[in-house]
Structures are given as C-alpha cells and as structure tokens.
C-alpha cells in the first residue's frame, strides 16, 4: 500500500508538467537538478515514461528489470551522444513513435517481452537525444543532461514498480484506456508535426 502511495505520488509529481519548456533551461533552475526537473516536466517525456512504466509493470520481474536496464543503458549512450552532437535530430519524432507504440501495446494488453525491450531501447536513446538543452554552455549542458538521465531513470523505476500493483480488473481496464489515450496523443502530435514541417519547413 505504501509503495503504491509512493509510486502514485512520484507519478503525480512528474505528471504535474508544464509544456513548451522543452530544450529550454527553466528560469532560475539549472545544473543537475534543472536536468532532473527537465526530464519530468516535458509532457511528451512524461508520457513516454508513463507508457513505458505501465508496459514494464506488466512484465515479470526479470523482464521488467531488464527493460529498465536497457532503457538506462541506451539513455546513457544517448546522453553522451547528445553532449557531442550539436545539431537537431529526429529524436522527438522517434520518441513519439515509441510512445505511441507503447500506448498501443497497453491498449491491446499485449506486451511481448522482446518487442518491449526493443521499444525500451528506442525510448531510452531518443529520450536522451531529445533532452539536450538549448542555449547553454557546454558545462551547464552536461550537468543538465546528467540530471535528465537521473530523473528519467528514477521516474521510470517508480512508475514501473508502481504499475506492478495494477492487478485488479478495473485497474487493468483503466490502464488499457490510458494506453489508448497515450497512443492517440502520439498519433495526433506526430501527424501535426510532420504536416507543420512540410508546410512551414
């Protein structure tokens, strides 16, 4: 019960997100803590962590922890790459693809372990590549990327371990409805971005 409370609290906190702050340092908050906040306050990042956490929560303990480890490993690789790459990537779009696919898996209540591991890897890598803050010094950027990695890994662990307790019939239905919402949001935002890019450039 206490663990469920803690999981719900953590999910609520990272869910209390303010949009349109992606890639911009939050006023007055920088460094590692700023990165942690950044990882949790960008809506699409929060959606990704929620979706992946819900899927991993449906896995057996070994598979769940493997998924978290793969996410963390690819997240680390991606953060190193993000620190070195200065140009824009399609990471945000691919992150939405991964999030939408995870939402579909939740809605279908079909979570094959290998596919989940693949999506966890994709989500980890793209999450990191999409976390590079704009307009900051290299040192500050590195600090924030470290914070983003820590925040993402901790939030994912909290959601995934909390989702283990979603066992009742009503909770599983609620999770499937949430999954359909996440997938729908992913499809709509991705289509809007693609059209915007084609229209505006």
């Amino acid at each position, binding site marked *: 019960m206490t663990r469920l409370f803690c999981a719900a609290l953590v999910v609520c906190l990272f*869910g209390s997100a303010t949009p*349109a702050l992606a890639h911009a340092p939050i006023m007055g908050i920088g460094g590692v803590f700023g990165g942690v906040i950044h990882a949790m306050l960008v809506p699409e990042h929060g959606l990704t962590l929620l979706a992946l956490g819900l899927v991993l929560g449906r896995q057996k303990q070994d598979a769940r922890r493997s998924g978290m480890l793969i996410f963390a490993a690819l997240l680390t690789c991606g953060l190193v790459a993000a620190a070195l790459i200065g140009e824009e990537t399609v990471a945000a779009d691919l992150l939405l693809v991964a999030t939408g696919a995870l939402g579909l898996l939740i809605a279908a209540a079909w979570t094959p372990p290998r596919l989940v591991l693949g999506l966890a890897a994709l989500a980890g890598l793209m999450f990191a590549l999409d976390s590079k803050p704009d307009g900051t010094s290299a040192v500050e950027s590195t600090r924030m990327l470290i914070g983003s990695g820590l925040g993402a890994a901790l939030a994912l662990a909290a959601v995934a371990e909390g989702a283990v307790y979603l066992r009742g019939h009503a909770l599983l239905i609620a999770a499937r409805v949430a999954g359909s919402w996440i997938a*729908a949001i992913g*499809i*709509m*935002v991705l289509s809007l971005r693609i*059209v915007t890019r084609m229209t505006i450039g």
Partner: protein
Amino acid sequence: MRLRTNALGLLAIAVPLVLAAVTTPALAHSENGVAIDFWGGFTHPIFGPDHVIAMVAVGLWGAFLGAPAIWTLPVVFPLVMAVGGALGVAGLPLPGVETGIAVSAIMLGGMVAFAAKPPLWIAAVLVGAFAIFHGHAHGAELPVGADAVAFSMGFVVATGTLHLGGITFGGLSHWPAGSIAVRVAGGVISLLGFAYLGKIL
C-alpha cells in the same frame, strides 16, 4: 482492502494524466484565436454539441452492452479518432464529414434507444467508422505550427471524459427504470442527430 487498492491504482493512472495536462499555462494562440494549450484542446470537442452527443452515445451504448464493450468502445474510439485526426491534419479530403457526424449521433443514439445488442466486433467497427469522421473534423481545425502535445492531451482527455459521462449515466441501465431513462436519452440523441442532419440546429 482490495477495493481501496484498486481505487488508489486508478488514481495512480488518472491523476498524472490529468495533472500533466491541467497545469499547462496558456502560452500561445493560433491564428484563429484557438488556445494551443490543454484547455484549448479540452474545450475543442466540448464546444461542438454534435460531437458531444455522439461521444456520450458511445459511452451510453458501451454501458448498455456491458463488459467487454463498456471499455472496448472507449478504447477503440480515441485510437481511430486519432487516425482520422491525422488525415484531417494532413489535409486529405473526406467526403460528408458533417453528415457522418450527424449520422453517428442518429445511429449510436438509435442503438441505445432500440436496445440493440450486436456482436462486439460489429459495435467496435461501427464506433470506429464514426470516429474517423469526428477525428477528421477536429484534425482539420487543429492549429498547424504549434507543438500540440498539451493541446492533444486536452483533446483526448475531453473525449474520454465525455465517454465516461455516457458510461456513468448508462450505468443506470442495471435498473428497470434506469434502463428506460438510458433508452430515452439514446432516443433524444438520435433525434438531435436528425436535427443536425437537417441543419435545424
């Protein structure tokens, strides 16, 4: 004890989804004055009464059909609606959108009014087919140029909330008098659909 755990688990899913969106400030407006934030997305379907009655009818019919339709229909609708929305965003023409929306209210309301209980797959296909029209209408009006994560979250959450309203009211169908009330509501929705089809409203 189990009931309380279920309730907490439900909160663990619902609260972050709502909070993630509710805390969004109004940061931008589209050229036509539509707020590109959570509330802009949330109010978008709600300010279209023809959409509202159809969404409520989906919930009513799901509740009337009972499990698993009570959750299958609200899962199918946003997923297919998002595909329709993507078509609308992309500017792909879909003939008879407004007619399709009016017919959706007529058909879905009529299903409830006449207590129709087709197989689940037929109900899902019917609801999905109508969801294309609703999604297309919304997608065509989405403000291009915005990073619409919060907007889409509001949009999807509003749709789900309307379904939930229908399901809640449809729950009355467990009692004889309530069943009559639900069927009457379905009839009213169907009549309103005819009014929209005939451009009376």
